[in-house]
C-alpha cells in the first residue's frame, strides 16, 4: 500500500485549504455527522431550491485530512446539481470506496472525475473508509432533514 495513493496532492490541498468552508447565510437543509474513532465532526448546510437543485452548500467542522478533503471535494461537486444526481453520486462514491468500482458510467466533467477519484485510494485503507464517507452520509441526512447526528462508526 502506497501512502502517496492515499494522500495525493489534491487531497492534501483540500485537506489544508477546504473549499466551501463555513456556515451558509441562507440554507434550508442541514445535518451533523460524527466519526467517534477519529473525532471527525461535520456540520453540513445546504440550500435546495424548488426544482430540487442544490444551489449552495457548505460545511463546518474539523477532522483528519481525508475527512476534510472529502467534504471539500463533495461540496464542490454537488453544488448546482440536483438532489437526484447527488444521490447517484453518493452511491457511486460508496461503490468506489468500498468495492473499488470505477466510475465509467458517471456523468461528470473530467475535472470533477479527477477530484472524485482522488479519494479512491481510501479503498486500500479500510480503517479510513469512515473518514471519507462521513460527509456523504451527512449529505443524505441533510436531504432527509434528519435531526439525530450521523455516526459513521455505526453506519459503515
Amino acid at each position: 500500500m502506497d501512502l502517496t495513493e492515499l494522500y495525493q496532492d489534491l487531497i492534501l490541498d483540500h485537506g489544508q485549504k477546504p473549499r466551501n468552508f463555513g456556515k451558509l447565510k441562507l440554507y434550508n437543509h442541514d445535518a451533523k455527522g460524527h466519526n467517534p474513532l477519529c473525532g471527525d465532526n461535520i456540520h453540513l448546510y445546504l440550500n435546495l431550491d424548488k426544482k430540487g437543485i442544490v444551489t449552495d452548500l457548505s460545511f463546518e467542522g474539523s477532522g483528519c485530512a481525508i475527512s476534510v478533503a472529502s467534504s471539500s471535494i463533495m461540496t464542490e461537486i454537488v453544488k448546482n446539481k440536483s438532489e437526484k444526481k447527488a444521490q447517484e453520486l453518493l452511491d457511486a462514491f460508496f461503490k468506489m470506496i468500498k468495492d473499488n468500482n470505477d466510475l465509467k458510467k458517471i456523468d461528470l466533467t473530467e475535472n470533477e472525475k479527477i477530484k472524485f477519484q482522488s479519494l479512491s485510494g481510501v479503498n486500500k485503507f479500510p480503517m479510513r473508509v469512515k473518514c471519507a464517507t462521513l460527509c456523504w452520509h451527512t449529505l443524505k441526512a441533510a436531504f432527509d432533514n434528519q435531526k439525530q447526528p450521523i455516526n459513521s462508526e455505526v453506519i459503515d
Partner: protein
Amino acid sequence: MSISVTSQFPIFKKYKKLVYLDSANSSQKPISVINAIDNFYRSKYSNIGRGVYTLAANATEDYESTRSTLKEFLKAYNGDIIFTKNATESLNLVAKCFGENFLNSGDEILLSELEHHSNYVPWHFLRKKKIMIKFIPVNKDGNLDITNIKSLITNKTKIISLTHISNVTGKKTPLKKIIEVAKSKNIPVCIDGTQAVAHTAVNIKELDCDFYAFSGHKMYAATGVGCLFMKDKWFEKFNPFLGGGGMIQDVDIKNITFANGVSKFEAGTMPAAEVISLKFAIDFLKTTKIKNIEKHENELISYAISKFNKMKNIIFVGKPDKSSSLFSFNIKGIHAHDVSTVFDQDSIAVRAGHHCCQILHKKFNIASSLRVSVGVYNVKQDIDALCESILKCKKLFKIQ
C-alpha cells in the same frame, strides 16, 4: 449415537476417567475454541475499536463479525446483540434500564417459580420502587401452570421475564402461549435463554421476544462473556447501563451525549478474546449441527431416566423430561452433597445444591438436589458410570 465429538475436547484426554455431567453449570471447551483464544493472544492481540492501526482494525473486525455470526445463528434479525460479562449482567441490564424508564410504583413484573436467581434478584432490586413481583406457579410435575395466565397478566403488568429452559428440570417453558398473551397486551417479554442456546435451535425472530439473555461459557466458549439480544426500539429508549470509555459521543465538564446502538451499552474495554471465542464456539455448534446435538443429548437423558426409573429411592425434582439435556434428583435419605462427594471419588462431576433456584427447591420442600446435565461430549458409558456410583453410594449409606 448420532455424534462423536468427545475427542475434540482436550479435558477428556487429560482425565481419561472424567465423567463430566455438569454442562448446565458450564461446558468444557473444544480444541477449536481453545486454539482460537491462544492464537488471538499469541498472534493477533490488540484492544478493539480504538486503534487506527492494522492489529486493532483486525481485532475489531473479528469482534464485530462474532456479533453478526451470533445474530445469524439465533435469527436475531429484528434487533442487535450487546456483549456483557455473563447472562447475569445481561438480565441486570434489562431490569435496571427497563425499571428506570418504564416502571412506577404499583406496576407489576411477572416471573415464574422456575427462575434462576439471576432472573429474579435483578427484578427484586426494583421492589425499592414499590414494584410488585408475581410468579407463574409451578405444578407438582415441575411444569409452569399457565391455566390462569390471563389473570396473572393484569393491566398493571409491565414486563414478563421467563426462563426458556429450566436449569433444574430441563423443561422448556410454554413461551409461545405466554408471549401470545403478552403481545396482545403490548407487554414486552424478556427470555433467559442461558440453558437453551447450546441445546436446541433458537429462533429469536420467531419467538418475537424483546430481550434474550445468555452466557458464552455454557455454549462451549470462554468464560467472561455474556450476550443480550435487544429489539431495535429499546436501544434508544433505554438509558446507558454502565458509563465509561467507548459509550460516549461527546463529553464535557457539564454534559455528556451517548453513543447510539450497541456501543451505548458496551462501556470500557470489552472482553475481546472471549467474544471472539464465541464465534468459534458457534462454528463448532453449526458444524456439529444443533439438531444432532439435541437428538444426542435427548437420547442420553432418556437412557438415564429409564435406568433411574429402575432404581429404588430415587426422587426426581418434578417429572423428568426425556426431551431435554438435564434433570435433577435426590437419593432418599442421603444429602445431595454427600452423594456428590461419593461421585467425585469416581471422577463423576455432578452439581449438588439448589442450582441458584431456591424458590423452586423450597416449593418442592428440599434444600438441594443433584443435577445431571449432558453436553455434546457425553456418551452412554457416562450414564452407566453414574448409575454404578449411585449404587455404591447407597451401599455406603446403607440404603436400598
